[in-house]
């Protein structure tokens, strides 16, 4: 029937940036409540939605909140009442709302949040750095990065379908790099409404705040009741894994675009050293890799698409095939295992049980939203090849652009 949907699909391809792509996804999802608070760079998404509501293209409550904390509380309240909710933020805004991430996930409300990454203060910096979203990574939200506007659009639709699945019921953070995705236009194929209708059924929480079926959300508990509730939350996160895979298949069937839910591999078939990263820099990385392949370097790319729930076994199996893994952090993890970023730990931990562990070290690149230029990729590749030759790493973290 996917084929049927395809045939009568009135699709059209439009050029738009990641922010607008996210807004379009929200519109196609026919969200009921949108709540906004201004902060660059995600603001453009809310601007676009505001116009759609103003034009009557989208029948939704558009709430200009008084803070990100309120934004997320409004989203929580609306979702608890049975409405499909869309919100978002960037940088310190993500952190101002910090209190709400656990309550929303814990009450199992599939709120969707669009995040266009921005470096945390100080000082003020609009550039993309994943630290804002990553700082909330363990709160029970489904989380992943898109590398292009099209992928962002698709991820937003899929995230709703996954998060609202009765087997999952979890909030989702659909992230994209500020500027690199959010402000650069790309071709986005907008689907036919019928396709979306087939893919994304209306949101239905089993126990919303409905006067006809009164329930209480979030009563106090005794210490002994903590563990079972936490265990349920852990089960929910794990239970999401197969659903995520199932939904990606469905998406491919209906929309004709197939994504590996966890990992995108590029030129890895015979690769010996690979970059491991998230988000937009994956695009530049591909060109760099092509060039270095011409010079005979057996280099490839592994891009993580979903970091929560974390595909530990996939990461282990994939990365075990290589000799060297260079983790490009684009986030700040002060005083962490690698005294660099947080991705290194995720990779290293996943590989610990591997029979043939590759060498793993990380690159601090693209911090503060700096573009990672080709010659930096060459330099990083050199470091990986040297390590491969040496059979040992030089150090766990290299600060790209500050070393010879």
């Amino acid at each position, binding site marked *: 029937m996917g084929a049927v949907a395809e045939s009568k699909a009135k699709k059209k391809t439009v050029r738009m940036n990641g922010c607008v792509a996210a807004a379009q996804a929200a519109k196609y999802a026919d969200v009921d409540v949108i709540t906004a608070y201004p902060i660059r760079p995600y603001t453009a998404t809310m601007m676009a939605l505001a116009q759609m509501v103003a034009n009557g293209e989208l029948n939704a409550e558009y709430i200009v909140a008084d803070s990100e904390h309120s934004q997320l509380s409004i989203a*929580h*309240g609306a979702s608890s009442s049975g409405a499909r909710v869309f919100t978002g933020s960037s940088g310190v805004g993500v952190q101002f709302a910090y209190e709400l991430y656990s309550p929303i996930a814990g009450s199992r409300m599939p709120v969707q949040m669009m995040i266009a990454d921005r470096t945390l203060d100080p000082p003020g910096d609009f550039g993309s750095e994943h630290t804002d979203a990553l700082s909330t990574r363990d709160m029970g939200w489904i989380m992943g990065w898109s590398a292009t506007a099209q992928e962002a659009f698709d991820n937003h639709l899929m995230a709703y379908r996954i998060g609202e699945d009765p087997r999952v019921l979890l909030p989702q953070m659909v992230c994209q790099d500020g500027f690199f995705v959010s402000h650069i236009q790309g071709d986005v194929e907008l689907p036919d409404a019928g396709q979306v209708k087939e893919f994304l059924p209306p949101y239905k929480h089993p126990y919303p705040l*409905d006067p006809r079926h009164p329930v209480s959300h979030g*009563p106090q508990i005794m210490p002994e009741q903590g563990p079972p509730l936490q265990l349920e939350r852990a089960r929910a996160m794990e239970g999401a894994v197969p659903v995520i895979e199932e939904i990606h298949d469905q998406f491919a069937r209906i929309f004709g675009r197939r994504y590996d839910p966890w990992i995108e591999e590029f030129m890895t078939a015979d690769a010996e050293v690979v970059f491991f990263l998230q988000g937009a820099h994956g695009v530049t990385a591909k060109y760099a890799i092509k060039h270095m392949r011409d010079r005979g370097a057996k280099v490839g790319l592994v891009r993580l698409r979903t970091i929560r729930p974390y595909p530990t076994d996939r990461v282990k199996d994939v990365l075990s095939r290589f000799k060297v893994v260079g983790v490009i952090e684009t986030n700040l993890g002060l005083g962490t295992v690698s005294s660099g970023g947080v991705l290194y730990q995720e990779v290293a931990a996943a590989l610990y049980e591997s029979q043939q562990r590759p060498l793993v070290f990380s690159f601090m690149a693209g911090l503060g939203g700096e573009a990672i230029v080709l010659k930096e990729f060459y330099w990083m590749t050199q470091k990986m090849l040297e390590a491969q030759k040496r059979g040992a790493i030089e150090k766990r973290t290299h600060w790209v652009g500050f070393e010879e």
Partner: protein
Amino acid sequence: MATMIEVKRQELPLFSSPNQGARFFNPELPSSEPFVPGHRTCAGCGPSIQYRMTSKAAGDNTILVGPTGCMYVANSSYLCTPYNVPWAHTQIGSAGSFTAGVAAAYEAMIRKGKWKGAFPNIICEAGDGSASDIGLASVSGALYRNHDCLIICYDNEQYANTGIQASSRTPYGGMTTFTPPGSEIPEGKKLFPKDLARMMAAGHPHCYVATASVGYPIDLMNKVRKGLNHKGAAFLMVYTPCQKGFVYETPRSIDLGRLVVECGLYPMWEWNPERREFDYSFRPASIRPVAEYLKLQGRFLHLHAEHIAKMQKFANEQWRMVGVALPPELVAAENPEAQADMASAEMAAAIAHTV
């Protein structure tokens, strides 16, 4: 363009006064009991009295929002709650915002045909800590955006749930665990309370705003219904004595609710959003010196004459505000000489007579 279904709103009738001539007889109250027994609030809990009256006035087509506070922790002890209508806990700073979310959701869902029925009463029961301190912005936001909801500040003048700490609503001289009296600071709390309700009325003139007290149940229930009937946001600040925090004999909960008004420490008024003016017509049965109210509460029994005089002055200003001609006794009571230390026995006599 999408179809828009019109949103039907409830219109709740007002109750008649229980004082009919010489006769005292409460009007016929709805039998529905959305707030049921079986909760861990203190014996004689003022906020719980308010909660019950409010929910009874609202009826069954109601959704309650409970920011962190006594009415969350005490009412939902051990994974069960006393609410027969939908209720949700939210963060202490989210009083207004979560409520706004619920209201927005129902606006949209009814409009889009996803929920059928009259628009529910959406009531937020925020403590003074939530409404006046940490959640002030979120409450203001909800009022400003005029969501169709009623935000109640059950004002027990402190953070009671955490074991009695001072809030911006704690009265001058009120002893709390964060404002204990000592040789350096004999009065305990040095600051006078934030006038939250007037702030809300002044800043959100399109909203129905009123103050009420558990001492006047029918008046309270009517204000709740007015707030719910008002098409848009409404804010109610209700005096709800806290047995634990105020330290009084449990049977006095309602009594204090009357005394605080009769002593001029809790002016009762309504803000009329249509006429854009305050309604000060409420008059208590009698007017008394503040000491009569203070002497019943352990939290004030450390006060000295000058402190009581200072509070009388404060009360007198409130009386003037609502346009009451002050009896000379009360003006005289602004003088410390006219007062006696709370601790001293003779003070009982000094304040015994009702002005």
